[in-house]
């Protein structure tokens, strides 16, 4: 009988293999892509940096940054939840700011610098926020977790930059790190398992270490 660990590895391998197949079959070269008018190409070359690596891609204009990361670069840590900017599972950092990768086109990020969960930390070299999520059990199924972690890392930077929030009492006072502030600022990341209280504890611990 196969051990659960072996099953997990084979599932992951299968995912990578099928993603590669889809890309080969589903990404025609620019010359062959659909066009509306003879001169209008529906594909574009774009180059940006992902987790420190400079990359060039030839993409159908419709490709979201999320799909470019997952289906073209096989960085499947970034998750597709709703694909409409409502859940936050696709949160990545672009030029240091958190955004929904599902609601932006890859071709709009020429020259940009993108950091995904894979770039924040790796097994054996975890980002403090990743370690804190493990320590505080800040997840159950784990699907929203990469988005939660990317979002929380950038969120603490936003507080450091003195960006106010909806629950900030005094707009002219320095931004504070409180549970209420963390909850409000993380409201763009939905966790349907309901691990919120542990997520707040994990973020609070990292924030405490920073200040």
């Amino acid at each position, binding site marked *: 009988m196969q051990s659960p660990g072996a099953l997990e590895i084979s599932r992951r391998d299968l995912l990578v293999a099928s993603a590669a197949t889809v890309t080969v079959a589903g990404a025609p070269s620019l010359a062959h892509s659909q066009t*509306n008018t003879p001169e209008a190409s529906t594909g574009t070359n774009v180059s940006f940096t992902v987790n420190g690596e400079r990359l060039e891609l030839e993409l159908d204009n419709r490709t979201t940054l999320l799909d470019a990361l997952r289906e073209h670069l096989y960085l499947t840590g970034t998750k597709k939840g709703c694909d409409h*900017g409502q859940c936050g599972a696709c949160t990545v950092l672009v030029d240091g700011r958190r955004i929904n990768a599902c609601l932006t086109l890859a071709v709009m990020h020429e020259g940009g610098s993108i950091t995904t969960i894979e770039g924040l930390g790796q097994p054996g070299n975890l980002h403090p926020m990743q370690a804190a999520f493990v320590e505080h059990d800040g997840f159950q199924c784990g699907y929203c977790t990469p988005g939660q972690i990317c*979002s929380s890392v950038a969120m603490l930077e936003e507080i450091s930059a003195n960006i106010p929030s909806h629950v900030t009492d005094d707009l002219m006072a320095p931004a504070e790190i409180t549970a209420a502030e963390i909850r409000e600022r993380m409201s763009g990341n939905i966790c349907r398992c309901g691990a919120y209280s542990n997520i707040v504890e994990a973020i609070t611990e990292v924030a405490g270490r920073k200040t």
Partner: protein
Amino acid sequence: MRAFSYECASSIETAAKAAASTDGAKFIAGGTNLLDLMKLEIETPTHLIDVNGLGLDRIEPTPEGGLRIGALVRNTDLAADERIRRDYGLLSRALLAGASGQLRNRATTAGNLLQRTRCPYFYDTNQPCNKRQPGSGCAAIAGFSRQLGVVGVSDACIATHPGDMAVAMRALDAVIETIRADGTTRSIPIADFHRLPGKTPDIEHVLERGELITAVVLPKPMGGKHIYRKVRDRASYAFALVSVGAIVQPDGTGRIAVGGIAPKPWRDEAAEKELPRGAKAASTRLLADARPTEQNAFKITLVERMLSAVLAEARG
């Protein structure tokens, strides 16, 4: 999503010209609403003109003592700007009450004004919707209308403008600056910018084909207490059932704009004259022409109670 060609605009003049001369062209800035709608094929542009590189991302003082906000200033940056926080707190508060941290980092000042309704029947392509498909009918009027408009609506459409920022801009009497395809510019007071639905709910604003918003100008600071109060179905990251943006002066006079109840930020200067007489007098005047459905009639009461709370907060 339908296929489209893509270009990065090199100047505001060429962007406006290209948008006017290319069939099916649309500008894209933050893209947070447009791409959402393109995935559902509610928006089907065949050409996108990316305006993000046009440098319209600064907030500068005007000779009149106000501020000129570039069309591409992101919601986060506008809300966090020290001058906005100090002199136009209502605008900061409204922005921070909207969307999520991720969306505010992308969404722009101009795009926010042009965002489309979140009426569920506009989003559901299996349903009739006069805004999405003119002449098909309105499923909302006899449907689930709890979230929808009570005033300024028509027999063709009861959708609302969903935003928070525009409510604050309306209370502040912001002016929208544009450039047209022929290179001429104009200034449009926000009161005249959004159109009421009437028989053509698909036409939502007064911009011409190819016309590009370049800035939104705020008048000089007007003092007073700035309050933005929003009632919604969850504590964060939800559209308003009703929102009230207010600037109340020490003498009890003030400005009130209301969101979540109409196809545009709803303000009536005659209702503001009633403010010293209290919330009931002002809200009665503000909603004199309201025609709610059974499901959203509660908004009439809610506006009065929120106004009452806002006036109490202003006094306190």
